[in-house]
């Protein structure tokens, strides 16, 4: 363990700083704007929501994007953080006067409790795969919610009456937390450990064969993600009161997952942008479509979701998108110069199969190695 910590320290270089520098710059600009009274109240509230959404999306991305395990219970960790964090804060407030210190301690406690449960939910992850794990995490989220609903100490169905933090200060603190989370995750995924995690995602058995401690890393990712989600929950609990168990339904977990998928799996920048955009879209739809128009809000949101996903992912649209992407224009120019032959192998790779197309198309290759059933293999790989 100590070896691991020293390793983390060694890896902790301040490279790849662009992401969090941009976030920090935006945050500083916003703080200045808020101090000079340029921001109105709803915008300040929105900023807190964006901040905890980013933390949630980035931490879920660690599990879904980097570890490659589908989790539908992220709101459960947030729920733990929100309830426990605000409860601890109310206890601490009796003995500590400094509000900021109380909030920080509450975040640590809320995060640690959530992390503990992340460890517990990480255990089935060692045994279960794919959709089975997804339903277990969903079940976990619903169990947490159901239990908090019935606990009198947390107000039962009435929700826990937390004390909100000054909104103008809260978003600044929340953004500081966002930046810390970003620095930590950016460094984690670019370290040796990050590579081990992505190796597990790409091929667990191969990773194991390479001597990667799969058990440790799987638990580690779940614990870290849960810790961050718990902190997001504590921020949430200080943003609004009461903390109500209804908020943390599987629909909320799905909303976080939507942020991760729209932003791109395994892309921290993508998660940040998607979390911001979705929170803003929700906010704009809510504040602009009031009264009788509210019913079309869900419609608009659903349509945006479907069209964005289809546009981003539809294989049929790929050629069109590629033709117009900046990246591709550049490559084409280079290709023109060199006269490279464009090969249409990609066409075949779209069809999912256990039988490798290449091995059928090129009969002189040895067959028996490649015609092995390979159910786990979702995207066809090159012939080894």
């Amino acid at each position, binding site marked *: 363990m100590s070896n691991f910590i020293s390793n983390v320290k060694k890896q902790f270089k301040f490279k790849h700083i*662009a*992401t969090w520098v*941009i*976030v920090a*710059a*935006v945050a500083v*600009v*916003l703080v200045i*704007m808020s101090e000079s009274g*340029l*921001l*109105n*109240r*709803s*915008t*300040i*509230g*929105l*900023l807190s*929501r964006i901040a905890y959404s980013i933390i949630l999306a980035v931490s879920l991305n660690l599990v879904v994007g980097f570890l490659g395990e589908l989790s539908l219970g992220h709101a459960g960790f947030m729920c733990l953080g929100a309830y426990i964090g605000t409860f601890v804060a109310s206890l601490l407030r009796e003995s500590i006067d400094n509000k900021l210190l109380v909030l920080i301690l509450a975040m640590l406690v809320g995060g640690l409790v959530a992390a503990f449960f992340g460890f517990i939910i990480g255990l089935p992850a060692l045994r279960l795969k794919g959709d089975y794990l997804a339903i277990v995490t969903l079940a976990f989220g*619903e169990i947490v919610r*159901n239990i908090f*609903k*019935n606990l009198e100490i947390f107000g*039962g*169905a*009435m*929700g826990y*009456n937390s004390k*909100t933090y000054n909104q103008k200060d809260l978003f600044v603190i929340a953004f500081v937390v966002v930046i810390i989370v970003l620095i930590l995750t950016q460094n984690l995924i670019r370290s040796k450990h990050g590579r081990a995690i992505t190796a597990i995602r790409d091929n667990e058995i191969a990773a194991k064969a390479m001597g990667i401690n799969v058990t440790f890393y799987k638990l580690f990712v779940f614990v870290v993600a849960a810790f961050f989600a718990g902190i997001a929950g504590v921020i*949430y609990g200080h*943003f*609004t*009161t*009461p*903390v*109500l*168990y*209804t*908020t943390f339904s599987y629909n909320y977990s799905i909303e976080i997952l939507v942020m991760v998928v729209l932003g791109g799996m395994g892309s921290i*920048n993508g998660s*940040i*942008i998607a979390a*911001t*955009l979705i929170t*803003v879209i929700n*906010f704009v739809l*809510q*504040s602009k*479509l*009031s*009264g*009788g128009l*509210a*019913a079309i*809000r*869900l419609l608009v949101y659903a349509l945006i979701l479907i069209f964005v996903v289809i546009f981003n992912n539809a294989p049929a649209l790929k050629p069109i998108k590629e033709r117009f992407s*900046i*990246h591709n224009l*550049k490559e084409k120019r280079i290709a023109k110069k060199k006269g490279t032959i464009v090969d249409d192998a990609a066409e075949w790779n779209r069809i999912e199969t256990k039988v490798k197309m290449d091995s059928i198309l090129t009969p002189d290759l040895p067959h028996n190695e490649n015609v092995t059933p390979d159910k786990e293999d979702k995207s066809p790989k090159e012939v080894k």
Partner: protein
Amino acid sequence: MKNTAKKVLAAVLALVIVFSFAACGNNGKKDDSKAILIGSTGPLTGDASSYGISVKNGAELAVKEINEAGGLNGTKLAFDMKDDKATAEDASTGYDALMDAGMKVSIGSVTSGSCAAFADKAESDNLFFITPSASAANVIEKGTNSFRVCFGDPDQGVLAAQQLVKDYKNIGCIYDTSDPYSSGIFDAFKAEMAKLGAKYILQTFDAENKKDFSTQAEALKDCDVVFTPFYYTEAGLVAKALVAKGSKAVVYGCDGLDGIADQIEGVDVKVMYITPFDVNSEAEATTKFVEDYKATYGVAPDQFAADGYDAIYAVFNALKAAGIDDVSDMDASEVCDAVVKAITDSSFKLEGATGTMTWDASGACTKVPQIVKLGA
């Protein structure tokens, strides 16, 4: 190379967002009309949306009537309800958006959980609000700025316990453990029943299991009366489940049961409930409201619509009694102090769709409960 392009894109997006915030900031300060904005949040989508939509319809009807009659000494009223999906965080966001739009007086939130969030923010601004339907005790406990139109949950629980013990022998009770309204009433009911030394059979359900009541009906079928402190949709299902089990029990509920008549059409069951609002009431204010509502929306109003209607009239009458007809150069806190003074005055009385109401400094509303009886 691709990465750089992405980063540039990210930076551009970040800038766009910053500027759109700045744009938001400017928008809010615009105040082009002198209309008094009465703000509110309520569930307009999702599971609880029928309550929010009813309140909105009732409130909009009241605002229309007031404006057609000349408004507040010539100043028009405006009403806006933001969708809060019955969640606390969306109620907070809605509150902020309304404050940015220049809200000085409000009718709070429709559901108890949201209204607690709304009340928390309203207290720090000292904004006057009178919630139509959030009946949980904690909604009006904070601050002196909070009022309500409906009955409080505990009062109904106590009243129901007394009535049931007086009239029936085998008492059953079923409540929704996941709903603040239902558990609020039940807690008071439980305490009062303990005080009266009465026994009863208890069953529960929650938001995840609120459709199929056959199990609970099985346990309750031999009771003379079943106390159902929740909303009419579920109560209708409970009534049908009881009948399906061959039970003769009377279904006895609180004001949430208003609207159950349609649900139990053709079902052989006796239903009674405590309510301030009865669609078939003879009272002049009520019949006028019911007729106007039917003419405007084509359906009979439920209690939420009546509460929304009364909340607007309470605000309107209180503003009038306080002598305020222009809030554009007052802040919310000033309006609040004047309105609170007017509404708690002993001479202030509102003849509304839900009966004759008076308010005291606690924010609770005093009005006479009626007991509506339906069925054989």
